[in-house]
Structure formats: C-alpha cells, structure tokens
C-alpha cells in the first residue's frame, strides 16, 4: 500500500542503522512513547538493528494498558445492566478487571459489542431507541476528535440514549511525570506521530527545554522509527535538546485545528488515574459541563466505584520504562496473552504482548552481543 510499503524498505532501514552507528559514541536511553511504535519496533526487529550503545525503553502510550482497574469495573457494571448495549474497541474486552473481563460479561448474556468507530456506537443508539447505548471512550489525543464528534453529533441530533464512559489520557503530562521522577533514565523521546498529528508539537517545546531532553515527533513504520532514533541520538551527541519533526508527511507544528476545536468544545482537562502509575494531574479529558448528560458514569450511577491494582503485575514499572517485560517472573509463565495478569499483556500494543509474540531471541543474550553484531534479525 502506498505510504506504507516504502517505509518498510530494508535497504533504507539498513542505511539509517548504518548512519546511526557512525554518529553514536556513548550510551543513550530513548523512550518511544506510543504503543503502536513499540509494536512496530519489536515486530520488525528495529531494536536489533541499533548500535549496542542505544537502548530503547517502552513508554506508557497504550491507552488499553493505562486504563485503571476501577474504570474497567465501571464498564463491567454498566455492561451487566439490563437494557444497556455496551460498545467498545475490541482490545478492551479481555483486559482483566477485579474478578472478570467484559468478554465474560458478554458470555453471561450482557449485550457487549465490538465497534470500529464511536460513530458506529452512535448508529447502534439510533437503531435501538428503547436501549441505553454506551461507548467506552478510551484513548489518547489521537482518538479524542472521534469521541468528541460522536457526542457532538448525538447532541445536535438529539440522540438521548447515547453516552460515553470516558477514559481519555494525554501524553505531555505523562512525559513530564516520567521526567520529574527520581528513577527516570530516559534521555530522549520519540513522540507519538498520530497524537501530534492532532495536537501539533508546540506543547512539547517547553518540556524539551525544561528537562533538557530531545523530543522527535516520529512515525510508525520501521524507516520512520529509525530516522526518529537517528535524529534523537544526533541531538544527544551534539548536546542539543529540541523538538524536531520526523513525521512531516502528517504532522504540522500547529496540529489539526478543526479537530482541536471540537475536542475543546466537548472535553475539558481533568486529573486521571493511570493503571500501574497512579493519578497524574491534568492528564486526562472529561466531558464539559454542557455535555454532562452524555456521561455514562452519572447516568448509570457508577462514579463511586473504586478498585485497587493487582500487585502481581509489574506493568507499572514497564509503562515507566523502568523494567522490560522479560524481567517479570510471571512473563510467559503465569502471564500470557491467553491468561493475562495485566493490560500490557492484553493489548497487542502492550510491551509484554509484543515481546511475547515477536521476540525471537532473549533480550539478555542480545545485550551481551559485541558491537557489530547488532545487525541480526529484521
């Protein structure tokens, strides 16, 4: 497919890997923020092409992974309500709550449906006027314009039996939380290309200068990621800390202005709990006061539900780049994609699931490779 295949070209990828080896003189730790990038890195073996001094740690950018257990409990409660149709993206259905997941609710007779778009859920509401239709609005900034539009259209068209269970998170506050942590080891970021397609990258500029970290807005194909890593390492080697844009075919500095306008119309910034991380101030979106009628938490009276995280799962440390999946004793043994302990094993974009599906060699062996042996794989 055009605009995909050419960015998977092996020769170009090797060209970037070679250029990267030429400029790397010291050890550097970079974080790719987005789970889609983690998936591509592990799937295509991008990390195996890197010089041994460059370490990639995997960031918190998988919305399925960071949705807190208590929100899942709310979803399960709503989906179990007679007369409710609960619509969601497919990957939320197997995320474990306290005692069950949404798929179990469906097996028990709950009307749980997988949809491709929030507008599909809105259509379900129009077709079922006697039912209450709820959409599980999970996502980062990339998905916010779609969810905002569903609410806006529902409001315009007077569709009263539609509501959202909102679990929206924002990238920049999470990056700041990571950077200000005493355990932080991230020296440079690959920012998420589609988040920045919507929001632009002006808001990353104060972060780059305050924490003196280079931030490179990066795409999702192997060649994009390798160029992003090259640009980031070059800044580190030259002692610069700027925001640069690798993904220029989609991202403009100001972002998508009509999309931002509708996000602001429908949502406001709120504090949010992140699974495995805890509450981060100003890191999420909730519905604006004038759209409160579309809030499923109020409509179904589930706002009071709280739940603690399971302690067996180290996904919190993985989401903060402190641990890699294979460092967890449960990885691949008691925790597998069929029986996940935590969300990073459920979502295909979660670091644990990506390692489980694609890792051909053990990372501990890869790390002990002498320099020059890093062109294995891919």
């Amino acid at each position, binding site marked *: *497919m055009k*605009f995909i295949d050419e960015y998977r070209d092996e020769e*170009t990828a090797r060209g970037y890997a070679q*250029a990267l080896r030429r400029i790397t003189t010291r050890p550097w730790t970079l974080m790719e923020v987005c789970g889609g990038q983690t998936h591509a890195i592990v799937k295509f073996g991008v990390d195996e092409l890197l010089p041994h001094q460059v370490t990639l740690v995997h960031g918190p950018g998988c919305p399925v992974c960071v949705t807190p257990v208590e929100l899942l409990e709310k979803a399960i409660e709503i989906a179990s309500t007679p007369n409710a149709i609960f619509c969601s993206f497919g990957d939320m259905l197997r995320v474990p709550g306290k005692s069950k997941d949404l798929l179990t609710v469906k097996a028990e007779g709950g009307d749980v449906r997988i949809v491709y778009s929030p507008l599909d859920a809105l259509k379900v509401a129009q077709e079922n006027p006697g039912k209450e239709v709820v959409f599980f609005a999970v996502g980062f900034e990339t998905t916010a314009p779609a969810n905002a539009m569903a609410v*806006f*259209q529902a409001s315009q068209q007077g569709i009263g039996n539609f509501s959202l269970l909102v679990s929206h998170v924002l990238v920049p506050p999470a990056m700041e939380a990571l950077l200000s942590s005493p355990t932080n080891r991230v020296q440079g970021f690959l920012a998420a290309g*589609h988040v920045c397609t919507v929001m632009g990258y002006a808001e990353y500029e104060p972060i780059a200068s305050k924490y003196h970290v280079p931030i490179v807005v990066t795409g999702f194909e192997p060649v994009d990621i390798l160029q992003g890593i090259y640009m980031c390492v070059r800044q580190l080697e030259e002692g610069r800390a700027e925001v640069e844009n690798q993904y220029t075919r989609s991202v403009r500095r100001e972002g998508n202005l009509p999309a931002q306008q509708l996000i602001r119309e429908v949502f406001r910034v709120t504090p949010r709990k992140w699974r495995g991380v805890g509450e981060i101030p100003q890191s999420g979106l909730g519905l604006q006061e004038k759209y409160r009628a579309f809030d499923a938490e109020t409509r179904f009276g589930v706002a009071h539900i709280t739940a603690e995280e399971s302690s067996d799962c180290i996904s919190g440390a993985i989401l903060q780049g402190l641990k890699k999946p294979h460092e967890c004793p449960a990885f691949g043994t008691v925790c597998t994609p069929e029986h996940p302990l935590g969300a990073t094993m459920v979502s295909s974009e979660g670091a644990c699931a990506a390692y489980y599906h694609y890792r051909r060699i053990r990372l501990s062996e890869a790390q002990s490779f002498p320099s020059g042996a890093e062109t294995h794989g891919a």
Partner: protein
Amino acid sequence: MCLAVPGKIMSIEGADPIFRTGKVDFGGILKQINLAYVPEAKVGDYVLVHVGFAISTVDEEEAMQVFEYLRQMGDLADLEEGETK
C-alpha cells in the same frame, strides 16, 4: 490504538462540514470515512484514517523527505571519507 492507515479519497459527500464523509480506498477495500477534520482534502488525496475519521491529509512532497534525508547523509559521509583518505 493510535493506529492510522493511509487511504485515497475516491468520492466526497455531504455539504454540512460536520457530516462531510467520503469513500476512501485502502488498497482495494472501500470504507465510508468522516472527513470533517480535513476540510482541505479533495478527491484523489491520501488521508490518514483513525477509527473512521481522517485526521490529516498526507503531504506527498514531505513523504519523500525520509529518503532525501538519508541520501544527503550518504553524500556527506562519502565526502568526509574522501577528505580523510
């Protein structure tokens, strides 16, 4: 989750900007896509689509930059090697 797939706009319908939609071709698969957020997009343009919404128009000139950047670096490396010989 933040996956967005490039596709080519084959037709556009709807006068109301909020309900503007189009048929977008993803390598032979046609889907009805909301185009409210890409008011500049026209038939024949490529758009990046996420959960049924086009979130940007692909800039075809910028799309070549990835390869141009690498070519320029190659030229530079050759030049440096030449100087040290």
